[in-house]
């Protein structure tokens, strides 16, 4: 849960909160984003996610799984919207749900299995980092 200040890419450090109950996916997302130079905080359910959000410096994005024990993603969204200090932090759903979720309060929806290239493009865009490596001509 600690913020690791890896500045491998050299740009200003931006932080991201990953809320995901599956430990391996949580760890992989953390590793990927850290490789890209982000500070990554993690939580294993919505309740824990809220606790972390209240204590850490404002992250530029929350990656949120929807189906989780204790407090699911939609409940997290509802609770977050009532806390003025964190309500405005953008959230991207990352889920394998079959039905497209209610997107009214979400910035984006990334389907599982996650396609890293697409996810990174979106994260960089949201965190104000230019997508320098344009893969496709």
């Amino acid at each position: 849960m600690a913020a690791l200040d890896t500045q491998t890419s050299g740009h200003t450090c931006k932080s991201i909160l990953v809320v995901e109950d599956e430990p391996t996916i949580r760890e992989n997302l953390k590793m990927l984003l850290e490789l890209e130079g982000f500070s990554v905080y993690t939580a294993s359910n919505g309740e824990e996610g809220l606790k972390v959000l209240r204590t850490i410096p404002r992250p530029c994005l929350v990656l949120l799984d929807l189906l989780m024990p204790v407090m699911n993603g939609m409940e997290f969204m509802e609770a977050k919207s009532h806390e003025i200090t964190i309500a405005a932090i953008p959230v991207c759903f990352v889920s394998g749900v079959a039905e497209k979720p209610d997107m009214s309060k979400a910035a984006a929806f990334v389907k599982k299995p996650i396609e890293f290239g697409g996810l990174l493009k979106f994260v960089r865009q949201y965190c104000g980092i230019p997508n320098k490596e344009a893969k496709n001509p």
Partner: protein
Amino acid sequence: MSNSNDDKEPKNSEKPLDVPHKRRFIFTDTDAEDLFLSIMNTARDPLVILDEELRVRIGNISFYKNFHVNPAETDGRLIFDIGNGQWNISKLRSLLEEILPTKKTFDDFEVDHEFQEIGRKVMLLNARQVVGPAPVSEKLILLAIEDVTEKTAAIERARRLANIVQFSDDAIISKTKNGVITTWNEGAEAIFGYTKSEAIGKSIEMLDAPETKGETMRIINRIIGGEVVHNFETKRIRKDGRIIEVSVSISPIKDTAGNVIGASKIARDITVVKQLERQRDQALKAREELIAVVSHELKNPLTTITSSVDLAKRVLPLEKGPEKAQKLLDNIYVAAHRMARITSDLLDVSKFESGHFPLELATVEAITLIEEVITLSLPLALDKAIRIEKHIAEEIGDIVCDRDRMVQALLNLLNNAIKFTGEGGVIGVDVYRVNDQIRFQIKDTGCGIPAEQLPHVFERFWQAKHKQYLGSGLGLYITKSIVETHGGKVGVESRDGEGSTFYFTLPVSNKAITTAPATKAA
């Protein structure tokens, strides 16, 4: 042949026949004959008087009218000869020639005869052998013919109807305004278990199930109030206490003045149908749930596999990692993605087949749609150095669709085309208008599809017979389902060895529903 020497009298004349009153038939006294003729012509049933040799002496107006003959054709002729021998009826012959001479009279003999010109007639015959007035005192035969054709037909119809009612598998019951059962057919016996004698005279309320108490009388009151109850599904109780599900239709029975005096009910036992429906719904739901759970549960481990491989490739220094390791990781990555594709395809198919396939409709520019799909396919095409040639007509128009689903449908076609086109090949993407339709067409330069396979390519689990291109066999089926859900049509043209052209058409949108979210591709 026409026996008529007198063509003043058309046979089927609508006007009353001019019966020649002036001729003397039986009576010497004119007044007596006039009176007699008046009596004859006042009778509504056909009457005819024959002489001893069974020749027609005279008929009344009703006789001529009913049997479409006239005096000129009949008078003085043998009854069996008149109207081209139409009256040569064996039963009539035996009545007149055998029974009458001995018994002098016969009553209510039914004769059913098919007349050539007037069709089938059912007649009740009465006859009397009499002696005419003096001084001649000849023997005469009075023959009264009652036409009961209509009456017999009505009775027959009623009997048939009664049979249908009696032996119907549906319960057909009638009851008074107060709910007293007045008729009860075999269907009712079978469905409710009460015999006719057990049911008639009882209250219809005995059929109310505990949970529908009072319902039968409420329905009767609604009928009296002028309502119609049609295919109302409810529960009733049988004599043996078993609760059954029935579909009932109830209509009023009215008297001739139009007052409701009761109600007739048709009830069908739908217990088994309902059970089967519930089983089917449960099975469909269970299957849907199973597929949803399985595919969702598969997604997490798949995400772990693909993201781990992705990460491994990123952290593995190329110079240190042997090419073989990279290749193995690629294999894992491709296989995991294929599994992911199949689970999500299966989930889609389960949605189509359960009919639960919601569309998020928006107005979308056809051109942005195809551009997005081409952008998404580009990496795959570049890997095989395939050139995509676009031919997109200008001002092509908008379509109303679920953008994500339509991208999926087009991507299936374009990725298929790339899969089946060789290295360095060409794929044509054409979008153009055909009247009020937009046609999306993707032409590959692959191996083509044999003619006998063409009708099956959009079926579930159809796969091209090339081992190296394994898929779920659901892609084209999904494309077809998506397109058809949008009111479009899919098609394919192909020549074995010369590539294939897959296409679909969608109606051009006339009005914008909402603005499509600006999903930027790449």
